[in-house]
């Protein structure tokens, strides 16, 4: 080394440096520790929150199973509705809340409260559904609308809905809706597309039955 200093000189240099920078260094360290601690705490909290929501959802599933079984009991139904509401209000942005709303929609259909079911599905639509959920919700809404007599509105909902994985599902619902309108030709076409699109997936015997029922005589 070029400039060898004595030990005292070195110590003195350190001291000077400390006087100059010590304060800001300490503040910096404290800040860093605080930020890390806050980050950890926040992470833990959100993890706990998610786990709590998960446990609620698990109970909700059990209650739903109980309320749609053969021995449907009122108690599970009210438990299910209570848990569903809780998930939707306290964990509004979570996946569990969306799935809870989907389940609530089903319970509403079972009680023939179609408007309530539509509202639940709308709720899912406005709460950042996944791509698959968005399609499922639209399909279910379209069917409910048609059951309420608004077949045209249901069909509009399906227009422009394109998703390769769901194509067979979409076209089958479209066919059902056309059939409700009495439009057998369009229904047949829709069923045919659905059958072709579904060839990769599992067989759908009901779809074939519906399609065959609309057969025309080949002369």
């Amino acid at each position: 080394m070029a400039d060898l200093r004595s030990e005292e000189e070195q110590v003195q240099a350190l001291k000077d440096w400390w006087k100059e920078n010590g304060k800001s260094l300490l503040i910096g360290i404290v800040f860093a520790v605080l930020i890390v601690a806050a980050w950890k705490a926040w992470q833990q909290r959100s993890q706990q929150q998610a786990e709590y929501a998960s446990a609620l959802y698990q109970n909700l599933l059990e209650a739903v199973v109980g309320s749609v079984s053969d021995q449907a009991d009122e108690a599970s139904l009210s438990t299910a509705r209570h848990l569903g509401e809780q998930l939707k209000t306290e964990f509004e942005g979570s996946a569990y809340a969306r799935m809870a709303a989907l389940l609530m929609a089903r319970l509403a259909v079972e009680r023939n409260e179609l408007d309530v079911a539509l509202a639940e599905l709308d709720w899912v639509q406005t709460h950042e559904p996944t791509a698959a959920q968005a399609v499922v919700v639209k399909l279910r809404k379209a069917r409910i609308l048609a059951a309420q007599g608004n077949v045209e509105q249901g069909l509009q909902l399906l227009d422009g809905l394109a998703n390769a994985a769901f194509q067979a599902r979409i076209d089958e619902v479209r066919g059902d809706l056309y059939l409700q309108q009495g439009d057998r030709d369009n229904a047949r076409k829709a069923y045919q597309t659905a059958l072709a699109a579904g060839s990769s997936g599992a067989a759908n015997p009901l779809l074939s039955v519906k399609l065959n029922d609309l057969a025309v005589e080949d002369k």
Partner: protein
Amino acid sequence: MLQSIRDNSQSIVAKVIVGLIVVTFALFGVESLVSLTGGSNAPATVNGEEIGERELLQGVELQRRQLLAQMGENADPSLLEDDAIREGVLDGLIEQAVLVQSAQNQDMRISDQLIDQLIVGTPDFQLDGKFDRQQFEALLRNAGLTPLTYRALLRKEKLIEQERLGYMMSAFTLPGEAQQVVELDRQTRDLSYFVLPAEPVKATIEISDEELAAEYDKRRGSLMTDEQVVVDYLLLERESLESEVSVTDDELQTQYQTLLENFSAEEQRHAAHILVEVGDQRDDAAAKARAEELLARLQAGEDFATLAQAESDDIGSAEAGGDLGVNGKGVFVPEFEEALYALTDTGSLSEPVRTDFGYHIIKLIDVKQLQAPSFAETEERLRAELVREKSEAIYVEQRERLADISFSSADLAEPAEVLGLTIQQSAPFGRNGGADSITANPKVIKAAFGDEVLKDRVNSVLIDLDNSRAVVLHLKEHRQPRTRTLDEVAEQLRAELVESRAREQLKAMAQEKLAALRAGATMAEQAGELELVSREGVQRATRDLPLEVRTELFRMAQPENGASYASVPMFDGSYAVIALEQVAVADSELSDDERRSIQRVLASGRGQADYRAMLEQLKSEAEIERL
């Protein structure tokens, strides 16, 4: 140079770089640098997440065990090839990874408590209804898992299940949809049909030799014989060694003595009883009094069997007059046994005996002393046992020798001579195996078409057919696939040609009939002398119509005015002409219960389909790389 490094390291740029390195190490450790250099060789990655080779191997192993268990003894090794299983298992793992990632991306979580609950609640991990840690760990070890990996596995499964049930359980069926399905399902159709038989048409068809030759040329490529082999083999059987074994009288005697030593003379007693139960209806004292009363009646001369039938609370034996059969010691509860063995004279009765069941009155019917069998009685059996043992020893030794010698010999002549076996020749067989038990054995087929036998033309390794038969193979003849000659296939080709021409002609006939019918002719006119079958109210589930006719019937257009018509080829080559006369819906009224259960079935089908579509969607979005 050191000076220049020192100078340069003062510059801002250098400080920033050093700072970055420090931060990287502090935050991510050494791994981040190592993983940059070490290339990945994971069997697959899903959105950058690797599926570990270990996971895959574990899955393959598990699958193989399950397959083995299903196939039992006749396991076909070719189905257990790693590669075949691997693909399926890897598909499953990729699917799992896609689903878990989907759940995690939505911030779904499973708490440790839930996992604990699941583990503690699993019946397999319980002993006497309570969770048992050792049982849990032992079971995991058998499956090649640790508690930690098992928890991770459970967590994944649960995550996937939460999302799956979110789709499955939320699917619904609207009342109108259920109605539509029920009406379709209960639809009935009225029809009449007649069948244009194939035989008369076939009888008129002549196939010339030129046509046959042309057909042969056209299909030459698909008229190949299978690849076959004929093998010579040596069969070593334990049973045929039995004749070489001799058993001396001394050995028989020794064996008989051992048998006698192991035989303990045991007394057996034939007993009957009457039970007076102590329970809710009768307390101890009342039962005892009742038992004593019964005993008094017996002593006064009443028949034991009759009384037992009428009064005993032991329903099982009461019908047989209380008879418990002949038993040795250790069958009954101690108090009962003691009382039974205290009786000395046949026909004597015990005082009422208290056991956990209540009060018994016991009757000794007979005492049987079990005699050791005489030498003459057991000689046959002992001789057979000895012969078996000895021949087995020889078999094991000869099996070893056969394996050794055939390995070092060029063909089967030497081992045959040394072991005194005859070389036998198999019938020709292909890769699907032959008819007898040797050529049908999968291990034999595999060896016969393996490199050793087929290419290197050496003796095969020794193959155990079962635990008392073994074979060694040597190739006799390898028959390569060849085109069959015209003579060999003439019959078959002629029949096929006749068949297809007849089908064409019948189809044309059916078309003519259909046209006539649509132009207004009646079914009766068109059927002519053929039998016209008419049925009303045919349902989808009606079984007594030919399958082809029923299937076609429910594919036909609904009649607008009059009837609709169609024709369909039948299994035996004939053609059916069908008229659909009317479509009706049988009673489609549903009770509430029926409607609910139909709705539920349909909803679960829809839920399944939604979930499957979602999975497809996820897979199509994911970046999946397979090695």
